[in-house]
């Protein structure tokens, strides 16, 4: 990682601080009550610089540390985000281990759900961090590599991991411990650092070389106050959702309860590396514009416009200066007040080309499918990546996905033992609502769902058009997970805590278009399934009653009926009257691909139909295969396809259980629809094995 890291002025980042700094008396409305008046001198005596750490203490909630439960999640999130960002930037398929342990208090280790103090350790196989930088990264707020550029990444403000470190320091007094190694030939360094909260500067407690069993990467350990609880908005949920949107990553999670969950790598290609871009003039606010005028290295206003923004050519810069009656050769630092404002307005009213979009790295339809399939049990999966679009000068891409239904083995599994029903009793059908999982730059958003543009777009869509029930103003009903991802160099959040995406028209429209396409495919699938299922139901009805009729006939005839023969004869008639083998085919019992449903996976009783290879894990023996796949895709990309256009040819059908099951995948699919059974896991293992073989066979023929 070569990008320079530097300190960021606080005022640029936190409006609350910026606003409190100037003399507040000047802005104060004249009060009618003279008794309350305070002189400027008195106030001046109270005005002083606010240290960031002080600011943090008072505004923890802005950074996601409002309560112990959320704080624990935020710490995990900041560390894992950094690990994934660093790996991706360095072109390494991420291997991230998260370990959450209960810290004993006075020698007593509380059960995880009652404990108040935790040790969090996150280890990655990324590029590592050079020794000199370590203290500032982990013990200086607003220090990072990602703020001073417009590039898509998880972290943005250089406030993440150091804020977590600050939280640790404030709640347990323990320093942040770091191990980092930049390569097998470099030494591993161990650090213990804390923040000098007055000066916002690192205090190094310990710094030494150590032996580390890992050739490369970084390990961060924090000791924090927190609460561990499963369920909604939990660490567990966040990691699971992270694994859905990052199927190229392998995550291992040691829970505080002593379990180990492994989220396998289901997709073996690195996401295309996003390029850095300069800001587009439409996306800059006036205050920022003024700041940029001060900071620029250009000597003329025209030069500043042409070099510090994208899509402004020197001639366009001249033109705009003239239109705003600003001398193009004027020094940027001298442009102030109304003249600056006129230029700013002129720029906003000039037609300027949309920003380039190669700075974005969408997940991609195939990767989304792999992620959904890996973690969510369903019958139907689909994914859509929209072409790039722009809001306020910021390019963005919307991606949506759907996982629908219950896996058939789950359907057949009786939830309760069959109890004869009494008169007036019925099977109660509880209404299950769809679940929305939201992402910004591949990071799951777990809070403030109803404020989020993605959620609003889901509610706004008429799901009834696609055969899914929906009551007014509610989520669609059914066993369904709706996935929405926004990738952008600058994701507009509704608040500092980055929990919900702001509902810009352009963004809303793109989300709607993506969801609509997913819905349309789901509708096709449901209709097709319904047709086959009704035939199947007919046959089922007959099969159900044949037994009864045969028994009744036998009793009527005094027990002298050849029962088996009569049953066979009747079953034969039933089969011929319910579409026979044709129904089997539609039901996916015999084969056939998911025609007309691009980028979809359909799971049936006997197998998986898909265009993408699903759920295969890269064990050591598969390493070469994985790189092969990656190379293949590089070629394809070079062929001119944008990520969303690239499609793999053909579809295939995998028969579950046909191939000898070699247990390789340990995918802990906690399943959003319910629990797993042991027998099920075996079937999945067999599946992933056969998927790999099929993928291998295909490559063999095209080579």
């Amino acid at each position, binding site marked *: 990682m070569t990008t320079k890291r530097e300190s960021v002025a606080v005022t640029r980042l936190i409006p609350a601080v910026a606003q409190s700094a100037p003399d507040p008396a000047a802005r104060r409305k004249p009060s009618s009550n003279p008794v309350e008046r305070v002189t400027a001198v008195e106030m001046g005596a109270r005005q002083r610089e606010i240290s960031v750490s002080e600011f943090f203490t008072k505004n923890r909630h802005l950074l996601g540390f409002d309560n112990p439960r959320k704080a624990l999640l935020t710490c995990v999130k900041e560390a894992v985000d950094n690990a994934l960002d660093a790996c991706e930037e360095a072109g390494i398929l991420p291997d991230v281990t998260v370990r959450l342990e209960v810290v004993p208090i006075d020698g007593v280790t509380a059960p995880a759900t009652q404990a108040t103090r935790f040790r969090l350790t996150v280890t990655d196989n990324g590029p590592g961090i050079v020794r000199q930088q370590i203290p500032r990264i982990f013990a200086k707020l607003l220090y990072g590599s990602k703020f001073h550029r417009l590039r898509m990444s998880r972290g943005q403000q250089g406030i993440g991991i150091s804020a977590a470190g600050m939280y640790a320091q404030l709640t347990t007094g323990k320093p942040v411990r770091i191990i980092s190694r930049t390569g097998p030939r470099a030494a591993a360094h161990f650090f213990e650092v804390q923040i000098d909260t007055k000066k916002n500067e690192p205090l190094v407690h310990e710094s030494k070389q150590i032996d580390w069993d890992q050739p490369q990467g970084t390990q961060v350990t924090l000791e924090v106050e927190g609460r561990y609880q499963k369920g909604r908005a939990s660490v567990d949920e966040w990691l699971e959702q992270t694994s859905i949107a990052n199927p190229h990553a392998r995550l291992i999670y040691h829970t505080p309860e002593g379990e180990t969950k492994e989220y396998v790598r289901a997709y073996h290609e690195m996401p295309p590396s996003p390029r850095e871009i300069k800001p587009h003039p439409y996306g800059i606010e006036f205050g920022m514009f003024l700041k940029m005028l001060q900071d620029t290295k250009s000597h003329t206003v025209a030069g500043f416009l042409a070099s510090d923004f994208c899509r402004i050519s020197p001639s366009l810069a001249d033109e705009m200066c003239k239109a705003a009656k600003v001398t193009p050769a004027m020094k940027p630092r001298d442009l102030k007040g109304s003249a600056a404002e006129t230029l700013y307005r002129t720029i906003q009213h000039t037609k300027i080309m949309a920003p380039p979009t190669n700075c974005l790295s969408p997940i991609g339809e195939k990767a989304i499918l792999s992620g959904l399939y890996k973690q969510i049990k369903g019958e139907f999966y689909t994914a859509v990546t929209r072409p790039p679009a722009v809001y306020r000068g910021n390019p963005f891409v919307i991606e949506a996905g759907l996982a629908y239904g219950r896996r058939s083995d789950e359907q057949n599994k009786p939830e309760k033992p*069959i109890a*004869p*029903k009494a*008169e007036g009793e019925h*099977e109660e059908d509880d209404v299950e609502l769809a679940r929305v999982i939201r992402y910004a730059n591949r990071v799951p958003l777990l809070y403030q769902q109803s404020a989020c543009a993605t959620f609003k777009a889901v509610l706004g869509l008429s799901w009834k058009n696609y055969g899914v029930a929906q009551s007014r103003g509610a989520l669609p009903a059914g066993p369904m997970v709706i996935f929405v991802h926004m990738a952008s160099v600058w994701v507009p959040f509704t608040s500092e805590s980055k929990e919900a995406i702001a509902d810009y028209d352009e963004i809303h429209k793109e989300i709607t278009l993506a969801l609509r396409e997913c819905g349309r495919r789901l509708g096709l699938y449901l209709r097709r399934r319904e047709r086959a299922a009704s035939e199947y*139901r*007919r046959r089922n*009805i*007959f099969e*159900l*009653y044949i*037994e*009864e*009729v045969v028994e*009744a*006939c*036998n*009793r*009527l*005839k005094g027990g002298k*009926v050849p029962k088996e023969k*009569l049953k066979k*004869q*009747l079953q*034969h*008639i*039933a089969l*011929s*009257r319910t579409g026979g083998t044709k129904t089997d085919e539609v039901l996916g019992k015999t084969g056939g691909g998911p025609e007309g449903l691009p980028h979809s996976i359909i799971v049936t009783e006997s197998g998986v139909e898909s265009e993408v290879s699903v759920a295969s894990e890269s064990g050591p023996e598969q390493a070469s295969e994985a790189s092969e796949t990656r190379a293949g895709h590089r070629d394809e990309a070079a062929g001119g396809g944008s990520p969303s256009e690239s499609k793999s040819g053909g579809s295939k059908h995998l028969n579950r259980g046909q191939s000898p099951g070699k247990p390789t995948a340990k995918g802990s699919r906690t399943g959003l629809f319910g629990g797993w059974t042991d027998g099920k896991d075996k079937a999945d293992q067999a599946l992933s094995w056969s998927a790999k073989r099929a993928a291998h066979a295909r490559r063999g023929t095209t080579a």
Partner: protein
Amino acid sequence: MTTKAKKPTPVEKKLVGLADLVIQAAERSKDPTLQIPIRALSNVSFNERKGMIEMGEKKQARSFFNVGMAKKFMQTMLVADALAELQRAELTTSLREIYYRTKHTIKDSHENTFDTQDESDPIIEDLEVSLAALREELHVRAENAGSIVGPVVFGDDGDRVDCSKLGKGGYSVPSIVEPEYLEIRRCTADFVLLVEKGTQWNRLSEDKFWRRYNCILLTGNGQPPRGVRRLARRLHEEWRLPIYVLVDNDPWGYYIYSVVKQGSINLAFESQRMAIPKAKFIGLSSADPERYGLPRNVGIKLNDKDMARAKELMNYQWFKKPAWQAEIKRMLTSGLKYELDALANKDFQYLTKQYLPRKLRERDWLD
């Protein structure tokens, strides 16, 4: 079940025939199909000459391999099986017991063979009509819901029952009154008065109306059950007694009378053994309130359903006689219906002492 080899009854043979039908169809890869006569107005006709409703020829196919019918077909077989069991065991049973006997959860499912008795009752009627077997022959009895009092002597299971010596409660009419089960040993009455309501029957019995007018008082507590209708028919046929029907003055009362007289639409095939074409409608007539000076305030306003039902009755062929058209029209024009109980407005014993004596004296009835 009995082990001794007995000759199967004709009904049992018919029931076993259903199993044969299934076996033969399966043999030929055909869909097993039962032909069930349709039990609806569309499939009955009124035989003017005989004065009764007769069932037409229209039949409905019930096939096993038809999604809409599969369950009913299966249920039909289960009921047939239960009925055959009754035949072999020489037992009689109720509709409700048949329901419980045939109800179970189908193997490997949550589904019951029958969910309510409403599903099994019509199947029994289906079998009655398609096998042309009376319910009594199927050994299925209805509730005992009738009473009789008067100068008649029965033999019931060897017991002598003299209905003139049973106080005001009388004898409870069994649901099966075929000669094998109930013998009419002696009868000296001059006529039978079939009363719709138990309350009015009580009034007449308490007042010993039957002794004074030498008649038999019979009631079915509402729509007379099969046992009551069949007994009236036997008294009429075997002892040549005229039958007079006394009902409330409302469309339901008219209908009760018509069922006694020419049979029901639902089980039209039973008219042969149930209908009494010569039965007379003695009251309450829509002309009575005026003739007997009943005040308007003891009438009840006809509701929409009453009016619709009355108009429907006017369209039945057996109500086409001018006198009947006038009778029903008069009710509709007055907009009121009257209960028999309303006669008490004049005097508690008005029915016994004034109304009926005058009716009989004036021979004021409708045919």
